[in-house]
């Protein structure tokens, strides 16, 4: 009997591993191609037959990006904006999610529906009036302008997710705090938030990504190179006559490395250990 269990386990393990490898190929091959392109000479990108590593293999593209002050400024701007957006959005979304999850109040459904559907307007039609508004508010070509814009885009998602995560936590947790004389505020920050960290980290990481990769409004709301972000920097390499393929890919790769590192730092939160037995009736 023991051997059957063991073989079953090994088979299962092999099965999962195979699945993971196939999935990894699906996920990773385009990125591998990006990497390969970043090392090619511009004339080799369209060569047939396509090769992973070409004769003109070089780090030139990377050196050009890293040596270009304007491009480096783009990276800095992207970080400042994305980090601010993540922090502020999480804060605001936790508060709002708490309201939706733990309270009943008039207009609740309407406000909830408005928040959800507000992100449904095609951004391209929103650009012109939104731009006019930002100019009128004096936020044109500023960090705060970009930050609040990205917040407004990420809040609906963040609120939906925080509400959902908070909803999975039983109300008994709040009650235990209230019974001890705490307020809703205390219940939120002392008990609920620490438990929902995996969910919050997921929301935070995705908020960062959205802000980091956003293009249309980052372009429209900025005017000068000292305010622009990485996606704009990449598109600047798509010229009228040709693309600087290797530099575009190099910039994308460079842009993704720190984000990857961020993810690596926070992904430990995803590893289990937080839940078994955490919630006792």
């Amino acid at each position, binding site marked *: 009997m023991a051997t059957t269990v063991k073989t079953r386990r090994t088979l299962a393990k092999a099965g999962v591993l195979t699945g993971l490898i196939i999935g990894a190929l699906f996920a990773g091959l385009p990125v591998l191609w990006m990497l390969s392109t970043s090392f090619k000479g511009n004339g080799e990108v369209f060569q047939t037959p396509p090769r992973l590593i070409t004769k003109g293999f070089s780090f030139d593209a990377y050196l050009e990006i890293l040596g270009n002050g304007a491009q480096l400024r783009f990276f800095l701007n992207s970080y400042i904006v994305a980090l601010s957006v993540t922090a502020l959005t999480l804060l605001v979304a936790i508060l709002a999610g708490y309201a939706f999850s733990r309270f009943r109040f008039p207009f609740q459904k309407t406000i*909830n529906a408005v928040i959800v559907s507000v992100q449904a*307007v095609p951004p391209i039609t929103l650009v012109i*009036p939104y731009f006019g508004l930002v100019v009128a508010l004096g936020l044109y070509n500023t960090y705060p302008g970009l930050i609040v814009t990205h917040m407004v885009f990420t809040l609906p998602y963040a609120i939906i997710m925080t509400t959902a995560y908070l909803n999975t936590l039983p109300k008994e947790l709040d009650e235990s705090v209230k019974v001890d004389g705490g307020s809703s505020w205390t219940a939120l920050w002392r008990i609920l938030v620490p438990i929902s960290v995996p969910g919050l980290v997921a929301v935070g990481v995705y908020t960062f990504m959205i802000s980091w990769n956003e293009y249309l409004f980052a372009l429209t709301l900025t005017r000068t190179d000292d305010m622009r972000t990485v996606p704009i920097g990449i598109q600047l390499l798509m010229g009228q006559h040709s693309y600087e393929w290797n530099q575009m890919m190099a910039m994308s790769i460079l842009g993704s490395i720190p984000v990857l590192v961020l993810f690596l730092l926070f992904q430990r939160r995803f590893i289990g250990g937080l839940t078994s037995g955490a919630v006792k009736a």
Partner: protein
Amino acid sequence: MTSLTAPEKAPPAEPETPQSKRSTVARRLTPFGYLSPTVLLIVVLMVVPIIMVIGYSFRDNVIVQPESEFAGLANYAKVLSDPDFLAGLKNTAIFITVSMVAHLVLGLAFAMMLNTKLLGGVTKALFRIVYILPWLFTIAVIAVIWRLMLDPAGVLNYVLQTLGLIQQGVDWLGDPGTALWVVTFANVWSGYPFFMISLLAGLQGIPGDLYEAADVDGASPIQKFRHVTLPQLRPVIISMAVLDLIWTSQQFALIWMMTGGGPLNATEVLSTFTYKQAFSEYEFATASAAAVVVLLLTMILAFFYVRQQRER
């Protein structure tokens, strides 16, 4: 076979104690207090421009000429009878449905594989990194690299031909028959990490004792999945599905940069239609009308979502 459900969540039990009127009022206002920053931001920065867009949709010659005239519902009539709009509606429906289902299935499959107890932490961590890669790149680069790979003389055809799976290079993007599927595939690739990470976090939140109880009852893995995992993940799944539908319906840059809505309108979706109306035909009024139509369709979706939230 006992069916496994989550422990019943106790109804809210606000302690009823004699309070002064002031505290009751304050208590009623508490949720609004929590909501205030959100409401402030969204009202000022979203609702105002949206109202302006709605305003545009009722006028003619908006933006492109200094004076605009009131036009009633004319723009809506024009938009809803435009064959390109209707084609866009159909393609959008296919695009978002297939994308959403694929995102969900892939996301869940990957999340469960990454959550397995059968493999070590390091292995799982390595795979996790690979799986979130599509997330890290801006959509313009994703569009451009997929175009490069899908070129008739590109690497995908090369690999398929070398493996003997196809005889001649397929014109993936230029053939009206395959264009929409290919673009959807690229969209699935770029979007599944969102589902995967959210579901992974959700999986972490499922109490282990539920699975133990299931084991005690002799449940098979499939039964555990159906009766523990799925119900526990339900709120997260539904939220993400709604979000994904909304986001995918707005996906513009990926399609625009891969095919521009062509060939022969095969990949024309509502977002490309709206863009062309606004910045190529300079018809901001009809573009706004199209936007309002999309908004209305989404609000229906939003109401369903909110309703099911209540029924928890």
